[in-house]
């Protein structure tokens, strides 16, 4: 589009026109009556004063932002021409036009899906901006001020923070003699206090609209520079985070994945999240939580409004599952529980099945890959006869065996609420699997009819 660029280039020249206008014939544009390819072309040889003024406003927007005083059409003109590199302190609270923020986002990160951000380009821009700042924050080296400066600008727009990495502080001395010291440093983890990550206490209580927080205490794409301490979630980190979470009363969803959260950290987190006013979803999957952590989570279930708890891929065994089952039996508001890839065994499975006899709120239960066997299957079938709220049950990758399959089949024949039951790779015979599926289909059809009727 050379024509456009020319016109753009000429616009400032139009302010002091006389010299260049002398020879109109030299410019081929001047010889044409209509220039169809230029959407901004107009018949007027000299741009109108209005346009000149608006162009001036655009050029000097940084010194003198005039926007809200303009008429809607003029406003649109200015917003279309504003450069995307204007300081945020100027634009954050002044411009609400989505088009401008879309240009900002696309200039910075290319094409993105805005549907994740409630179709708000501005929200997307600020969330991603803040995420970038935090992800690139190096403790002791980056000034905390750099984060705090952005907070007042973006606190009205940030709803979700999806932080995929947190950098540890850079330790200069071991890096100098990396060859011999690296191994010892990584193995021993000698200097403790300096490997704390970004302190969330300074940030979370200022973000008044924050609803979702996703954290990974680790370094993304470290490649061959792998060191264990890059992935260390220290206890003081945990304490800071817990305090920060307590101060953030608008938080609804909290996800801390792949961060080596062990029992003690889990307990400190839980103790600070007890009676949290708004928390609805907690995801601690891909950690190393054991039975004590599970017990703490059971306590949290009883003293919060949690609706979804994801603790798959942890190290919860029978006692932890029993603690959770005990919490469930008290009819907590929990609707979904995911215990995939744990080792609760028959001990925990039976306890959960018995808890579900009393519970009438839980809708989803995932017990995949949990070393369950036949006794659990019989307990679950007994539960299925009496429970009428559970909608989805996943028992895949457990060795239920043929007898267990039969027990499940029998339990299913008395149930009319379960819509999905995953029993793949459980050693169940095909016949019982088929009959269970058939029964599920009837239940699904009934559920569909019910929903159609309710509509």
């Amino acid at each position, binding site marked *: 589009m050379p024509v456009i660029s020319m016109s753009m280039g000429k616009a400032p020249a139009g302010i002091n026109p006389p010299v260049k206008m002398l020879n109109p014939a030299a410019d081929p544009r001047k010889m044409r009556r209509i220039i169809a390819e230029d959407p901004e072309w107009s018949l007027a040889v000299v741009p109108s004063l209005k346009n000149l003024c608006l162009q001036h406003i655009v050029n000097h927007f940084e010194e003198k932002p005039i926007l809200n005083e303009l008429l809607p059409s003029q406003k649109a003109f200015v917003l279309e021409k504003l450069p995307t590199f204007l300081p945020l302190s100027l634009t954050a609270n002044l411009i609400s036009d989505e088009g401008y923020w879309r240009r900002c986002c696309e200039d910075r990160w290319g094409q993105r899906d805005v549907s994740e951000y409630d179709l708000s380009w501005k929200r997307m821009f600020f969330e991603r901006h803040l995420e970038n700042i935090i992800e690139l924050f190096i403790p002791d080296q980056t000034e905390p001020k750099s984060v705090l400066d952005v907070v007042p600008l973006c606190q009205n727009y940030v709803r979700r923070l999806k932080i995929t990495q947190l950098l540890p502080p850079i330790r200069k001395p071991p890096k100098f003699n990396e060859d011999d010291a690296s191994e010892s440093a990584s193995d021993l983890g000698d200097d403790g206090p300096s490997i704390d990550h970004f302190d969330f206490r300074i940030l979370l209580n200022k973000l008044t609209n924050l609803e979702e927080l996703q954290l990974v205490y680790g370094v993304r794409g470290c490649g061959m520079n792998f060191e264990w301490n890059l992935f260390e979630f220290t206890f003081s980190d945990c304490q800071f985070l817990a305090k920060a979470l307590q101060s953030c009363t608008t938080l609804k969803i909290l996800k801390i994945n792949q961060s080596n959260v062990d029992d003690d950290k889990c307990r400190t987190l839980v103790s600070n999240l007890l009676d949290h006013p708004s928390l609805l979803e907690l995801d601690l999957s891909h950690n190393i939580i054991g039975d004590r952590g599970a017990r703490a989570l059971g306590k949290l279930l009883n003293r919060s409004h949690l609706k979804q708890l994801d603790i798959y891929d942890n190290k919860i065994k029978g006692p932890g599952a029993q603690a959770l089952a005990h919490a469930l039996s008290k009819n907590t508001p929990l609707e979904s529980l995911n215990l995939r*890839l744990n080792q609760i065994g028959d001990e925990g499975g039976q306890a959960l099945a018995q808890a579900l006899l009393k519970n009438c709120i839980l809708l989803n239960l995932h017990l995949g890959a949990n070393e369950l066997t036949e006794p659990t299957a019989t307990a679950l079938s007994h539960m299925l006869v009496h429970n009428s709220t559970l909608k989805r049950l996943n028992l*895949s990758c457990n060795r239920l065996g043929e007898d267990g399959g039969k027990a499940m089949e029998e339990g299913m024949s008395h149930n009319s609420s379960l819509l999905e039951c*995953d029993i793949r*790779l459980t050693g169940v015979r095909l016949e019982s699997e088929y009959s269970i599926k058939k029964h599920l289909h009837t239940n699904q059809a009934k559920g569909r009819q019910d929903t159609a009727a309710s509509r």
Partner: protein
Amino acid sequence: MSRAGPGELSPAVESDSPEERIAARRLRIAARTEARTRLELGEEAQEQEENTEEPRTSQKQVDQSEKRMLKLQTDGTELVTNILVAADARETKRRAQLAEARRLRNEKLENEAKSSLEKFEEVTQNWPVAKAKEIPQDLRDALKSQQQLCMLITEDKNKLINELQHELKSSDDRYVKELKKQAEDVDLMREKMQEQMTSLMKLYRQELDLIENSFDDERKTLLTSNLKKWEQQRKERSDRELEHLLQRIKQKEENEVLLHRLRVANIKEYNMMKLNLETQSEILQQNIQKTKATNQLNQEKLEYSRHVITHRKMETIHIESLQRKRILRLQDSLKNLKVKCASQEKQAQEENQSLTDGYKRSMLEYKDMQKHLRHFAAVDAERFEEIWLMNENEAKALVHKVLETDRVIYEQFLGLAWAPPHMPFMENSGPIQPQHQAQRTAQQFAMQALGEVEEKREMEGESSTAEVAGLDRRTVKKLLELLCDETGFLIESKLLKLLSPLEKDPQSFIKLHLIFSALGIENEEDVYKMAEFFEKYKQQQKDQPEEGISVSNENELVREMDSELVHPNHVVKALHAFTAQYCRPRDLQSQKQSSVLSLEERDDSEDAAYWESMANVIPESKLKVWNALEDALSKYHTVLTERSKILTDTHHLKQQNAELTALLHQYLSQKGNTELKIPPTLVMQLTSE
């Protein structure tokens, strides 16, 4: 709906039979209500209708496709999740293997540790043995054996380390393999998802096409049916329109004829009207001209008057300024006057003070004077008595003298026997103490009046005063009764209560007593006065309103009515007037008397009578006799005097006669008489004849 009516066999409103018409109207009403409800329900109702109307094809198709798609979706997700489940299973297997390996390794390590500990203990046990050995060779052997043992231990350890390192390497390989496998899995999953996506898209499109086709078909059928209906109705409509058109053309022609006629008539009328209006407008224009002229005149007049007014205004402004100045001046003077007034007031106060002092002084003087007065009065009284006694003695002497003369007259002149007259006063000596013949009080009078009506006639004879007043007792009584009834307000309410149990007469008497005391009536005279006043009042009243009415005085009854004196309603007014007229002056009098004659007052009313009686010792008849006697005596005297006079006269005349006769004789005896024709003697004879 109603438009479609005539096409079908529905009842028509313009039909002949009444039943059909009723039915038609009912249908029309129903159609209207239906239309209204449909409007209210809006689009929802329409949609519902569609839904209810067409479950046959499209809905079925939608349901079918939905089911199919759901099944496909679940199958697809199962396919995709299969990978996940497989990975999970593998993971669990791996973990189990890892746990198993760890257990084995631990066991091995423990065994190793145990064995190495045993060996180490063996070595440590050997140390004292070695220490005990003193021969160097033995020591060397022992050391060697120890070394060998240590070597064994280290070998074992090294072996273990190697094994573990091997295991580590193999697990590293496994990890790499696992990573690869997982990457493959992820790729597979992505592929499958892609496939699923594309197939689902394809299928969705197909289903969508199917559904669309079914909807299209439905629409087509609906369209054709609607078109048919539309065509039919359009045809009907065009037919009807044609009919209407023809009718209209006919009507139009008729109307044109009518219009033409009307137009001609209107034009005529218009012309007439025009002429009329033109003449009127001319007249009006003339009027306008006239009014313009008058207007001009008026304007000039107004101009003149405006000039005058402005002139006046100037004058008034001038006067106003003058007045203002005057006001200022007057205000100044007012201020001066105020000052003066204040000073005057002060002066007056001072004066007042001095006057009050003077008054006090004069009061003192007055009291002194009174004292003196009393003293003088006492002295005067003494002197008076003395003078009185002297005068009386003198008078008595005179009386005696008179009586003596009287007796002389009677005895000597008249020759009558004389009896001395009765003279009670002669016994009196000194100033008389008048026996105050107490006038009958009003109360008594009232009592009498009320109580002794029967004795009226006799009383009439006796009481001369009543006769004098010219009022009969009856009217007085009536008046009193009236008073009694009407002026109860003068009596205290408490008293009235007390009086209520009494009989009528005493009650009214007490009442009257109270009323009199209130009115200030003290004695009988006052009562009569009052009665008279009432009479007069009545007269006035009657004169005023009843002039026109001829009152027949002959009728007794009417007199009775008149004798009611005053109408009860006017009693109070009359009383008021009476008290105003009479009671006030008397009060003043009485006040004066009481104030001046505070001393013992002597009643000199009787004195005159006393002296009179003394003067009238000789009664009138006697005086007349005296007078007659005097007259007779004086006449007698005159007669006597005349007789004496006449006696002297006769004496004179006799003398004269004698002279005259002498003269006559002389004349007659004279010679001349004889010579006369007629002698005087003759004449004298004649005359004497």
